[in-house]
């Protein structure tokens, strides 16, 4: 299935593309997770990735920062381009790639260290030793996620003492601190309460100013609220890609409509 079939022509014309997947396929030791996926993620936009459980959303996300490399027996076929550079061809070393393509996980995973040390983790890897500069950058990152006012008095406290919503925003601050270009988010709000979710969505919309965001979500309303574009993934294939409005009001495919309206069975039949 080529890019032409899944998305309307001229949809992304004139936009810079942050990430592109071309004919991407992914095989685990015993099964195929992705099958010739064509996806284009525009720069400085929020793109939502929806689809039933087990359709390969997370696997696709992990291809973009090569986190799948860490799983034994996992093979990737096809191409992934980050601002035009082929990621798997060796043009970019994985650590550098992962710095440029930040990731937020479903479960908040702050390190069992202080709040400051969490945010400064990536900066220290860059060899920044100056206390002043570290503090400066940590503060900026925390301000960017709106966490600064909540934690400024207890920066040395353990990050594990924060609430789940705060932890998730801390983790985003940690990712922002290393100045990424793209942010991958893997169902980041699924473990948050409604108020935290709201704040989180505001944050995502704000991030759109500077970053390209690819957001996996199970929550249709969330996708509708925050995303500019939405991609529908089903059984390892990308079936439809369009503006969010279009997908939710007037999907081209039966499957998309069924899924959005809740008529599709959660586990796809094979």
């Amino acid at each position, binding site marked *: 299935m080529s890019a032409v079939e899944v998305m309307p022509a001229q949809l992304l014309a004139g936009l810079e593309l942050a990430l592109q997947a071309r004919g991407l396929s992914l095989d685990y030791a015993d099964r195929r997770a992705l099958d010739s996926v064509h996806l284009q993620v525009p720069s400085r936009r929020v793109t939502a990735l929806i689809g039933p459980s087990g359709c390969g959303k997370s696997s696709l996300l992990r291809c973009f920062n090569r986190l799948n490399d860490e799983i034994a027996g996992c093979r990737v076929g096809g191409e992934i381009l980050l601002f035009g550079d082929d990621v798997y061809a060796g043009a970019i070393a994985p650590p*550098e790639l992962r710095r440029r393509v930040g990731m937020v996980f479903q479960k908040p995973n702050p390190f069992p260290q202080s709040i400051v040390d969490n945010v400064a983790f990536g900066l220290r*890897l860059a060899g920044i030793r100056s206390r002043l500069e570290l503090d400066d950058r940590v503060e900026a990152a925390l*301000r960017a996620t*709106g966490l600064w006012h909540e934690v400024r008095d207890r920066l040395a406290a353990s990050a594990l003492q924060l609430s789940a919503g705060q932890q998730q925003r801390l983790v985003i601050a940690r990712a922002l601190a290393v100045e990424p270009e793209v942010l991958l988010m893997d169902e980041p709000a699924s473990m948050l309460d409604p108020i935290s979710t709201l704040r989180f969505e505001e944050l995502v919309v704000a*991030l759109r100013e500077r970053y390209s965001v690819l957001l996996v979500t199970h929550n249709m309303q969330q996708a509708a609220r925050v995303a500019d574009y939405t991609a529908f993934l089903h059984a390892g294939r990308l079936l439809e890609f369009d503006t969010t409005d279009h997908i939710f009001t007037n999907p081209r495919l039966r499957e998309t409509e069924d899924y959005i309206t809740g008529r599709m069975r959660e586990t796809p039949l094979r």
Partner: protein
Amino acid sequence: MPVQVSSSPATSLAARFAQRQRVRARRERWLRGGLAFAAVLLGVLAVAMPLFLLASTRITPGWSETLLPLVAGSFKAAFYALSVAAPLALGAAIWCARFAAPRLRQLLKPLFELLEAVPVVVLGLVAALLLAPWLAQRVLALAIFVAALVPVLAASGALWQHAAPRRWQRALVGHEVGLSLPVLVLLAWAALVAGEAFATHVSAAIIQPQTPWNALVVGIMLGLAVMPTMFTLAEDALFAVPAEFALGAQALGATRWQALVHLLLPIAAPGIVAALLLGFSRALGETMIVLMASGNTPLLDASPLTGLRSIAANLALEAPEAAPGSEHYGLLLLSALLLFGLCLLLNALAEHVRGRLRRRLAGL
């Protein structure tokens, strides 16, 4: 919400990362190399150990006459140790895993782990200086104790279940060990008195040991030493069997014991066999208890009332004095290689059997 990440872009982070990339990549390579080196080193050592022993062994004409009593001694000690340890360890494992109250189990498990940690030289000391001379006069009492142990325990249990008030019985479920303690102490006391009383009887003369430092003493102490290892393995195997099996059987009218024997034991059998094999392997190689309490006389008989000399104890006694390269040295290394091979075989077998248990449990 304004998004402005860095207020001090002296040099951009990307440039800094680019600067450090080579250093970081080199560190990564070094670590990878270091780890692989450590792995290779250990692999070499594991192979080197038997090869080194093999390279220095020498087979001299009379080797079998020298080694045979030692091999026999090792097996004799291990056999008696296992006949003490196996019933104790398996019984304790069964009770701890399936019958003990959870609280009591949490208390008993670390207690057995601590018992496992007791240095063998301490046990050897107690065996050589106290148990051996004390037991030499009381073998008859021991025989009476062992013979009466099973019937007395079973009878006291049956009596309890028959005669004790319901309320008491319910309170004791999961703590049956509390009942067995006074019974055991009473039985031990009775056996000692009976042993004294029959001391002049003709049977006492038959089982009078030739030396205080005999296989009986070694068996008891060595058995105590290897028992915790076997207990831990067997207990883990039994505890891993899902409890629903036993409950299902009990719902069909089986007693707790019947459920255990007919359902749980067959499932956990590989783990128990592995425990026995590893216990035997440990008993074969244990040195200090045998060295201190066995008398170290190379004999070729199976009686528990005579002494013995095991391969391991022989090594500890003779190796420091043997001159490198001599025939004696070569023969010692040969015996060590034999012991090494035996233990390796038993361990590999135990590991194989445990693998079967793991597969079986995974299938449940």
